[in-house]
């Protein structure tokens, strides 16, 4: 199962992103607000660096002992009446879930937002069963109606404007109201409320599983995950295997880091901690509970220099500071996981074949590493990926041509000397405001992906020679 969203080359996705003016404006506005919100919360806490160190220490310990904590979690879930299915691959996870749904003869499923179910392609797998699947997060619901994919892991429909949303609601659900966000949301509330009440099965993701009690913690603002876990009699939780903490005390620390880093909130409106099936005489909540724990390539990182990528708590703060994401948007990464964490994680989960361009979608400025609440050295991992790609002899085509051209040019003293002398006037036709954006010959590949400063009128070598002749000091 590939994490790729579309079968197009990386450059094409980048170009589409760059040409989408609304998306670029929305992304840059969102980045500004998310970033400011995070910094404000960090400042209010005061000792943010200590919090990050604590987050890192908790994640490091937990992932180092992941076999122990997953064992404990599964024992506790079973004790509280739940089934636990360990799935090594996406196919295994999907086929178990399909089997549960078919046994229940379910007609309607409600889902709350979950990146791991996007990763394993669960909705496509469920479509084969003929069961109706309804995404209940507002952003996800909009995308589902349109047949689109999330472009951000926290605000999935960031690339849509309200007029597009109004049109979609009108076309797909007979909406007749305005494009005012409140009115759109009120319409969605009404539509989805009836879906919740009719659903036979609920499916959720998992922000943090708590090993000591077999508890699943879900973080939302809309309250949709609570509806999913309240109404249907059958509930399935899908979790990436690393989304676990030892006890409630670590859950608390990481939830606070997550909500502050993701959206600049001290906590979201709903943090809900669910444990297994409903108790005797309880009315709401499931009486049939299944936890599906997914590897799907995560174990590739264990015991390697990429292990810390599994520390990620999916806050998206690296995405919200990334200058590359700012310009190309989430879809250009062509992976379920965009931004710096996506560029690190996607090749770990899915190999380099389909994703060897991703580690190059970074300026290596290190803003991601600085923003990460659990101190994952993201930009160092990107360099490491590049190193491995080069060692495999698998450099992306554009990078290879660029380096080849520049290498040939710089490798010959004569060519280099002549070209630096002539460069300024020779490159004039391609120069605008002292910058070359679409250069000729060996510069073509370079300027396709980045600008080049125009050469000065006089090269350093000739300046140096003249300086000696003139006897200047």
């Amino acid at each position, binding site marked *: 199962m590939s994490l790729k969203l579309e079968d197009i080359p990386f450059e094409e996705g980048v170009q589409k992103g760059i040409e989408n003016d609304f998306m670029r404006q929305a992304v840059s506005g969102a980045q500004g607000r998310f970033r400011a919100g995070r910094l404000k919360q960090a400042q209010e806490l005061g000792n943010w660096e200590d919090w990050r160190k604590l987050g890192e220490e908790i994640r490091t310990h937990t992932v180092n002992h992941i076999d122990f904590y997953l064992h404990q979690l599964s024992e506790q879930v079973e004790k509280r009446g739940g089934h636990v299915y360990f799935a090594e691959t996406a196919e295994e996870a999907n086929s178990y879930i399909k089997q549960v749904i078919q046994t229940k003869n379910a007609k309607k499923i409600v889902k709350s937002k979950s990146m791991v179910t996007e990763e394993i392609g669960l909705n496509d797998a469920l479509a084969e069963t003929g069961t109706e699947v309804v995404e209940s997060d507002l952003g996800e619901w909009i995308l589902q109606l349109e047949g689109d994919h999330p472009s951000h892991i926290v605000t999935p429909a960031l690339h849509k404007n309200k007029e597009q949303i109004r049109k979609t609601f009108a076309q797909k659900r007979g909406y007749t109201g305005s494009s005012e966000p409140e009115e759109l949301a009120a319409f969605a509330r009404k539509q989805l409320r009836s879906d919740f*009440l009719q659903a036979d099965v609920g499916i959720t993701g998992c922000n943090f599983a708590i090993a000591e009690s077999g508890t699943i913690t879900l973080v939302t603002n809309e309250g949709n995950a609570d509806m999913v876990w309240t109404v249907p009699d059958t509930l399935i939780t899908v979790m990436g295997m690393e989304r676990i903490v030892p006890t409630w005390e670590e859950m608390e620390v990481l939830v606070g880091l997550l909500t502050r880093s993701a959206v600049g909130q001290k*906590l979201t409106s*709903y943090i809900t901690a669910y444990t297994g099936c409903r108790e005797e005489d309880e009315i709401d909540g499931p009486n049939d509970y299944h936890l599906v724990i997914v590897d799907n390539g995560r174990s590739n990182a264990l015991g390697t220099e990429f292990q810390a990528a599994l520390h990620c708590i999916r806050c998206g703060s690296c995405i919200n500071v990334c200058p590359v994401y700012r310009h190309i948007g989430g879809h250009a990464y062509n992976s379920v996981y965009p931004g710096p964490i996506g560029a690190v994680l996607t090749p770990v989960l899915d190999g380099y074949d389909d994703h060897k361009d991703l580690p190059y979608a970074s300026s290596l400025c290190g803003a991601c590493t600085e923003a990460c609440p659990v101190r994952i050295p993201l930009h160092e991992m990107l360099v490491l990926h590049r190193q491995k790609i080069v060692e495999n002899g698998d450099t992306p085509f554009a990078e290879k041509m660029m380096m080849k051209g520049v290498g040939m040019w710089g490798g010959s003293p004569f060519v280099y000397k002549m070209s630096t002398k002539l460069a300024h006037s020779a490159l004039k036709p391609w120069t605008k405001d002292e910058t070359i954006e679409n250069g000729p010959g060996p510069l073509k590949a370079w300027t396709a992906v980045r600008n080049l400063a125009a050469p000065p009128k006089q090269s350093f070598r000739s300046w140096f020679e003249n300086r000696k002749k003139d006897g200047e000091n």
Partner: protein
Amino acid sequence: MAVYNRDEFLNKLAAKLGRPRRTEGVVRPVWRVNPQYEVFKGMDQEELVDIFANQCEAIHTDFVRTDVAHLKNVLVDVIKSYGGESIILPKDPRNEIYGLPDCFNELQQDTNIHVWDYTIGKENEKIAERANIGITFSDITLAETATVTLFHNKHHGRSISLMPKNYIAIIPKSTLVPRMTQAAAIIHEKIEKGELVASCVSFISGPSNSADIEMNLIVGVHGPVKATYILVDE
């Protein structure tokens, strides 16, 4: 109840980590830094009330402070401001202690009051879905985030604080703690003593909301649209 593929799956993870699999003996370390215990350290209840009240504003929640003697009047006012109609609440011994039945007598005759009753099964959920107002007591209240903590059980369904359009939380002042750290510690200690944690523990901070449409804040999505927290001096 069953667990599938566990050994195969976890053995592989242990092998990748380059050591034998562990099913016992892992001790959670004492973390080197613990900033969570420093937040609002040494503050008294009054200082926490101030923090709580300020945060209510940030989360679009009305804050009212009163004492037990005046709770009745305050509650009647809030219920009326939400348009009365129909109310659902848990079966909770605090209902009587805080004089809620008295308060309901003050309301119009046609106001529907439903106290959660597990013997009528799913009908409770249907009533909650139609109700205009849900009222619960807070079990633990977090000052920093203006959060009420609810431990659900057979007398206190999850739907009460979730499905009605409006939500009112009654918050005894003694339930105030600085932040989620203290609530998590209380729950963790109980688990260590062998107690079972409630099947659902909710930390609720204000009405439901979303910023999914062009990053505009919309208050009121799937859960309540409006919320009032009433802090009661005891």
